[in-house]
């Protein structure tokens, strides 16, 4: 399965997992638009069974930052 978070981004954004890494952000991936962001939040909450605050959501401006936010909430990613 590999990296569960990369896997999730790959599925929701419909981008090959090999093209994604912690530096991936809306700035370097056009498919990560505002609608994709909404779908990502729904998928993250669903998959990792967490509830994100708006502050946390707004902080997640790259895969690495999403990972950090989730780790702070004790999700092992």
């Amino acid at each position, binding site marked *: 399965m590999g990296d569960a978070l990369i896997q999730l981004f790959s*599925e929701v954004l419909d981008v090959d997992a090999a093209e994604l890494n912690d530096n991936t952000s809306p700035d370097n991936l056009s498919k990560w638009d*505002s609608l994709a962001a*909404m779908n990502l939040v*729904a998928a993250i909450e*669903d998959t990792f069974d967490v509830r994100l605050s708006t502050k946390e959501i707004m902080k997640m401006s790259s895969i690495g930052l999403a990972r950090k936010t989730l780790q702070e909430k004790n999700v092992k990613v």
Partner: protein
Amino acid sequence: MTVTESKSQWRKHLQGKTEAMPPAPHVAVAGSMTAEPIEPYLGTHLLSKGFENPHITIAPFNQLQRLCADPASVLSTENIDALVILWRLEDMFPELLQRFLCGDATAATELMAETMAFVSALSGLREKFSGTLIVSTPPYPSLPGFDGAEILQPISGSVLHAEILEQWIKNISSIPRLHILDLNALLRKTGAEKAHDARKWHLYRQPYTEAFWHTIGTQAGRLIAAQTISAKKCIVLDADNTLWGGIVGEDGVEGLALADDFPGSAYREFQKHLLHLHSRGILLAVASKNNPDDFYAAFDSHDAMVLKREHISAFEVHWDSKVDSMRRIAEKLNISTNALVFIDDSPKEIGEVQDRVPDVTCLLVPEEAAYLPDILRGTDLFDTLEITDEDRKRATMIAAEDSRRTLQSGMSEEDYKKALELELHVFEAAAQHVGRVTQLINKTNQFNLTTRRRTRDEVESLMQSPTHRVLGMSLKDKYGDYGLVGVCILEKSNDEARMDTLLMSCRVLGRDAETAFLAQIAETARRWGCKNLAGTYLPTPKNGMVKNLYAQHGFTQVDDSTWRVTLDTAPTLPAHIKAALDIAA
């Protein structure tokens, strides 16, 4: 299916899609709010109903006024089969709601006027968009001032919403081929607190939780699927521990649980729900393994019974297998076994029916009696967009058919036809007939000379065409009204009227109604200034019964599929049928 399952199934569907597959159906969703989250739920519901390649487009949010005025500026509506519009008062008229909450007395009137203007805009959209239109009701506003939670708050918010809702439904219902998605009712069922997600509203202008989008998407999918998927027509009920608690053969009539206290209350409530479904035109039948005497003693004389004999279209009460009962009921009601829903408390009976008549939908009575009344609650089995008068009268017609059978026994065919006192009426189809005419055109297989299927729109445009006439035929006898049971579409060219479509429902065969119908069609052609009447027979695997119809009525064959008769020698009315003709000059 859960939220997660729907999403993953939909993702797989999108990945497996190729450009070559035509969308079937193509659904567009336009919302006063961000509506993108509906996609996987609407999509997977359509997949579960057998649609192969649903394709969903979401219009940019909060552009509904523009969409109505100029659809092309928001969406390319060209190949869209259905357009779903979801809207909320707080998105479309936020300032007016704010003024209303702050005590501005004129705001309520203005809100009503704006809402009615939106109805007019939708009726404009109806003219420009030819597909199916599905429009939501405005859900109860999700604003703190509308909560009713503050004890001193006036209840005027509830009254305002109720008034707007009432006027909205009343006015929107007059727009043709528009179906209502009751978003307000869905919100009430889910509960405002479970349906809303304030974070997503502020971040994305998207007010709802994934769970509520799941509910909305499923409902929209049901409305779309109901256009093409035929609804179940009959509920077949077991008796012991289904219609009542207990076993009548063992417990006796007095010992049955059927009353206003539990557990009898559950069975009574279930019967009440069945009676409600019956009033919508769904047939009821009983299949019970019992001694008939025991069964009828309970059914007829238990004073807490809600259902009476008049509500039941077929009884199969004996010790034969329920498989046989299913087949006999379908045969008697002249419907296919796939139109049956069978409810029984015995897993063994359910299993046997499932094995041997797999197209019957089977439901097992829940172990918890309190859940029995809900077994059909919210079900999509009976989903239909239009309940025609014929649907409502079906049960009465089946009862009349029983009386006819009694009359027929011990009588010659000729005497029987006379004794029925048949009256046939042929008339120009008008707006109120379009639903039934379209239904007959699309489902009649046997007595159908050309089997040309047509959409409601096509039928409506033929009714307007100066070179066509759409005729309806209704029939009644002394036992009752068969309703609208025949359709003929005539096309005139020069001095010939050609029967583009000629069909009759199978339930009126064997009464010479077809001869009377042809006589009235000939008379119509005559009054239209024609000299000849022509008919077409296009054979199908199912319409063999009418291959000699034209020959039997004096028509001469012209080529492979065409038959013609001059109107001087056209069929005349049989003596035992009284006929009327109502056509415009």
